């Protein structure tokens, strides 16, 4: 491998990070408050919720699937968790119920998608509506407020100066990274997304492994739901609406192929950060709120375009 190829390889592997770095540099010039340590922690804490869902979404998209129900799982897990906390005042029970909610939702999604072969888009779209309905029935449209300080610490507390959501985020990505690159399970995820039939004929049990993917994402979504509820101190009926799009966008900006089989876990958190930094810098600069959406859309398009250019270049090198 010559120096030119090496340079291209670096560009391909780290393309998302390079795009983030460029945005950070521009942002630092635009606003003096941007680069402060407190603002950096602030941005990471803000993106932690979508980034945690994004980790699960990476698994799902790698298998060639999609999960649109994550936002509703966030809301439902948060609502059940807050509801249980209100009646029992037991934090472990509240957290446990929240995670159990995710587990069950993921199990149902997996049943329809992996076992019955319903397209993931349709199955999770139906679940998204169904679960949102469940939230409304359960909360009656009124937010459930949380009083316990221990519970709130999951979202607001910090350990050694680092906010708890960031610690959870790091832990989730470490685990996801190990699972994806250092275990047999990770290999099967890539194989299923790369070529389902070839994977089956190679002796991979496609149904079981695909099922697990949907359980993973729902569990992570419920974890995100608990963090959101803890941060806000309340579980609203609308909580989590639209989160599926942020999570999917993070994964795609991270360079993972929507067709499945190709991509990495760590760029997803970079993708989430790109979205978060954009939100942050636009607010810091007090850009007209009507215009922020335009700026956001344009920057996402540029990021994805740059990503594609990198990919094309590296494909040429590898030809």
């Amino acid at each position, binding site marked *: 491998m010559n120096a030119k190829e090496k340079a291209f390889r670096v560009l391909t592997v780290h393309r998302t990070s390079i795009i983030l770095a460029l945005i950070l540099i521009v942002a630092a010039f635009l606003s003096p408050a941007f680069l402060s340590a*407190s603002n950096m922690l602030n941005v990471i804490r803000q993106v932690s919720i979508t980034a945690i869902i994004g980790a699960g979404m990476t698994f799902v998209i790698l298998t060639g699937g999609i999960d649109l129900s994550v936002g509703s799982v966030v809301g439902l897990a948060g609502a059940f968790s807050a509801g249980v906390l209100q009646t029992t005042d037991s934090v472990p029970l509240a957290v446990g119920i929240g995670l159990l909610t995710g587990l069950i939702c993921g199990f149902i999604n997996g049943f329809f998608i992996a076992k019955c072969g319903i397209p993931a888009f349709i199955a999770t779209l139906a679940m998204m509506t169904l679960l949102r309905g469940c939230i409304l029935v359960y909360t009656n449209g009124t937010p459930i407020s949380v009083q316990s300080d221990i519970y709130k610490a999951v979202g607001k507390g910090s350990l050694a100066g680092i906010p708890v959501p960031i610690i959870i985020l790091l832990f989730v990505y470490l685990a996801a990274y190990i699972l994806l690159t250092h275990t047999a399970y990770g290999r099967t995820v890539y194989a299923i997304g790369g070529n389902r039939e070839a994977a089956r004929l190679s002796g991979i049990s496609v149904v079981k492994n695909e099922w697990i993917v949907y359980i993973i994402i729902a569990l992570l979504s419920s974890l995100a739901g608990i963090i959101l509820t803890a941060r806000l101190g309340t579980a609203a009926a609308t909580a989590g609406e639209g989160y599926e799009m942020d999570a999917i966008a993070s994964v795609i900006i991270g360079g993972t192929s929507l067709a499945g089989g190709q991509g990495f876990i760590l760029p997803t958190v970079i993708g989430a950060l790109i979205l978060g930094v954009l939100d942050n810098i636009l607010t*810091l600069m007090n850009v007209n*709120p009507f215009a922020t959406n335009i700026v956001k859309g344009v920057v996402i398009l540029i990021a994805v375009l740059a990503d594609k250019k990198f990919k094309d270049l590296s494909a040429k090198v590898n030809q």
Partner: protein
Amino acid sequence: MKRSKKLLALVLSAAMIAATAAGCSTGAATSTAESKAAESAAPAQSSNKQLVIGLSMNTQTNPFFVSVKEGAQKGAEELGAKLVVTDAQNDASTQMKDVENLITQKPDLIIIDPADSDAIVSAIQEANDAKIPVITIDRAAKGGEVVSHMGFNAIKAGGLEGQFIADTLKGKGNVVEIQGIMGTNVAQDRSKGFNDVIAKYPDIKKVATQSADFDRAKAMKVMENILQANKDIQAVYAANDEMALGCLEAIEAAGRTKDIVLVGNDCLDDTMKAIKEDKMKATINEPPYFLGKNAVQTAVKYLKGEKVEKSVILESTLVTKENVDSVKTRD
């Protein structure tokens, strides 16, 4: 193999039905609040027939509108009317369908809380054609025949808040405005009222104006970012209490509760608690519960042949620590 497929089909359709049903109770279809003592409570009704009133709500995921519905249900119960409620889920086209569905049920009157002032006009005209009287609440329609409109004056509410902030800061300081969904009249009017007053004070500087879509989670995020950019903030005006409470989370986390005058709008229970604890300074009492109740009372009055006001503006009052204990938001 075949049997398992059938089972699957069954489970699936059950799931679908469950999904629709779950959607229904809050969604497109109806829920009813019936009177227990219909006949005795409606003496003026010549035929002794129970009055049926349709209520088309724009949303049921926002506590404000949930309270409107609860007030209306209470009013109907007291007057022995039957109330048929629909929820448009914040979508103008869904509301169009809802109103059409109500018309086919031939109620005596329809109360509409429009999701959109323009889009609702054709639905109102359909009701007019069907000779069903219409009352609008909260947002006024831009056309069609209505018997009465009742609501709050959003410009006035924004103005009251602006004046409160100006007085508290003694006409000098940095303020932040958190706007609602700027596609809606109420967000635009509150913002207009607020800014009209603030503009009179040259020493008050608006350091940030951002939208958070009336949403608590979004407001928290936006406020966190604003706090990062601005070390010197004296007051924050949030266009509703949900957003104000989101801002409060961010301000508390930054430890700046003491320095910042935070005001909201809507008089939610959580807000009143925050005012009592001195974490927030003011809100506007526009009790949605009474809006709903009043609307039903007016409807019954009209159906009995009594005269009703064409336009009723319910009073918006500023709530601060002084009067918070005497505020009544529901029965």
